[in-house]
């Protein structure tokens, strides 16, 4: 493998890896507080992409209940993505109220919350399909205004182009990770959240409003999920209502790589998975979709606590 090709693959890996990382942050945020995997996150991600598409004023296609309809407003892509993310956050709050909170209040088995979040995911994905059909949607051309579509990282004749969208995604993922880490470790709200993660009952006895903070967590996770949906949609187009689920299943591999509930770990896991997929040899390219799951498997065998994690104590 020549050196430019190597760098090209590394940059490609970083780009797709940051997509996975952003996805996994949303999972991880909720897992770190509630110790449950929110399968509905994949659906929220898809919703964010579709909300953004609708807010840019683009029309929906030929199938589904809403065929040939469009919103009367035409927001520029970035504004639409932000509003779409807020809406996704609101949906996430609704999901927590309807599908998680009743179970939590009853002290139900965590497996049940997982099942109900799966149910929510199935409902959302299929409602999208019912409303707007299963076809591919692309955002209006030039979502990022006058930025060039690709930036050259090579020198002279050796060109190493990277798409601007991917740099944007990478940047947003890093910024979100830094903000979240600061927020969780340095602010009072963040400390309260970590207290809830440690022991929800004690935290509420100490005067922490657990329900409100959990709602806030769901809102943030939903917002990040919705935003990543819009950004990734602008990179590869929205490939139907199941668009989020395939990322969601890979996101599971990422959070296992990073250690469940570890935010910096989610970023590292995403990047590692992205690089691993970029370096699949050409003759085995058909197996590329299996890489994430093979990695998941290896991690379960070798380091279930994640790449960065230390040995874990089993709480009774």
């Amino acid at each position, binding site marked *: 493998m020549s050196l430019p090709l190597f760098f090209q693959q590394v940059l490609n890996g970083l780009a797709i890896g940051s997509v996975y990382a952003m996805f996994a942050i949303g999972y991880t945020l909720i897992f770190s507080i509630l110790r449950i995997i929110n399968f509905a996150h994949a659906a929220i991600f898809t919703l964010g992409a579709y909300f953004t598409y609708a807010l840019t004023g683009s029309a929906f296609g030929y199938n589904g209940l809403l065929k040939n309809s469009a919103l009367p407003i035409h927001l520029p892509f970035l504004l639409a993505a932000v509003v779409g993310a807020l809406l996704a956050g609101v949906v996430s709050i609704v999901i927590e109220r309807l*599908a998680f909170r009743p179970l939590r209040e009853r002290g139900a088995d965590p497996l*049940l919350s997982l099942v109900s979040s799966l*149910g929510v995911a199935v409902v959302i994905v299929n409602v999208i399909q019912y409303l707007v059909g299963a076809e591919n949607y692309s955002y209006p051309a030039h979502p990022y205004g006058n930025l060039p579509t690709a930036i050259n990282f090579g020198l002279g004749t050796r060109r190493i182009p990277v798409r601007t969208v991917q740099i944007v995604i990478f940047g947003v993922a890093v910024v979100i990770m830094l903000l979240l880490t600061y927020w969780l470790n340095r602010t009072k709200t963040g400390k309260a959240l970590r207290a809830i993660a440690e022991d929800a009952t004690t935290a509420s006895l100490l005067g922490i409003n657990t329900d409100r903070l959990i709602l806030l967590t769901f809102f943030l996770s939903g917002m990040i999920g919705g935003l990543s949906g819009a950004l990734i949609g602008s990179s590869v187009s929205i490939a139907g209502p199941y668009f989020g689920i395939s990322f969601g*299943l890979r996101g599971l591999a990422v959070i296992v790589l990073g250690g469940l509930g570890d935010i910096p770990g989610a970023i590292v896991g995403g990047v590692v998975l992205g690089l691993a997929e970029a370096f699949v040899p050409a003759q085995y390219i058909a197996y590329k979709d299996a890489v994430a799951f093979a990695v998941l498997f290896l991690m379960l065998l070798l380091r279930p606590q994640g790449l960065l994690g230390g040995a874990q104590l089993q709480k009774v």
Partner: protein
Amino acid sequence: MAVFFATYGSLIVAMMLAAMLALSLYLPLLAGQLSLASPGFYALGGYVAAIISTRVVPFDSATQAYVWRLGAHEILRFPGPLYPVSLLIVEMLVASVLSAVLAVALGLPALRLRGIYLLLATIAFVEILQVVTQVLDLTGGAIGIFNIPQPFASQLGYAWVVVPLLVLSAFFVYRLERIRVGRAFTAIREDELAAAAMGINLTYHKVLAFTMGAVLAGIVGVISAHSINTWNSRQGTFDAGIAYLAFVLIGGSRTFLGPIVGGIVLYALPEVLRGIAAIPGLPPALAQLLKDGRLIIYGLLLVLGTIFFPQGLIRPNLFRRRKFEATRQVPGQV
């Protein structure tokens, strides 16, 4: 009656197969382990049947027989044109052994760990299997395998295999719940730590429960492949796993009757809804929803079921409690 069976023969068989798939997911759940591996083993069983019946013992149209050759030598010959039931049973055995080996290999690393690791490992297994079968020539690539021979003249003929199998597996699980191993499973489900303290080998029992479910799903796959007549990588998906999970959790996850009833009823539900959708005068949006909204309805049932009926509709003392209700005098007690 004959017309009814001719029309709905394949549906009736498929309902019973769905009940068994639900049982296959119920078995690991009996030991408290949530697994979505059943579609994977189901797909594996189907491929075993497809490969054996179309490649190992192919139909020779000149002599109207199924012939097993090794190199140039003819080893066995079965008269056609119907596929021999004895070979169907051989396929089931092969699928059982393969599923069991794979289940132990998959279950051992995942089940040493507590929590959701088995679920993650089984999702990974289903996805990997889907990718691999899409690529390999042996499994017909992305197109899959066609023209899988029929062992029976009509779809209802499959009942000769499916009914005994369903009764057998139901009886097996019924007995299992009442013997030592089954009690150990329930003990693990209720409290792992306490079960371990009682001397129950956690990993052994969890792997055992998981393997039993895998074998059952593999066997169902064999029958399905013949009944559907074609097999490809879209037969075992993550979505299918969620549907089976809905069968179990809505039907009931505390007694073997739950998944059986859940599988039969929920599998038939879309057909019933389609019938309702055909009633004239319904608003078109609602009719469309009833026709195509199978997964929306399953999803809603999963959410509502876990919140309002965490043990499912059929609970172990559903029938027993009636007797005591008349004598119970304490007010306000549920």
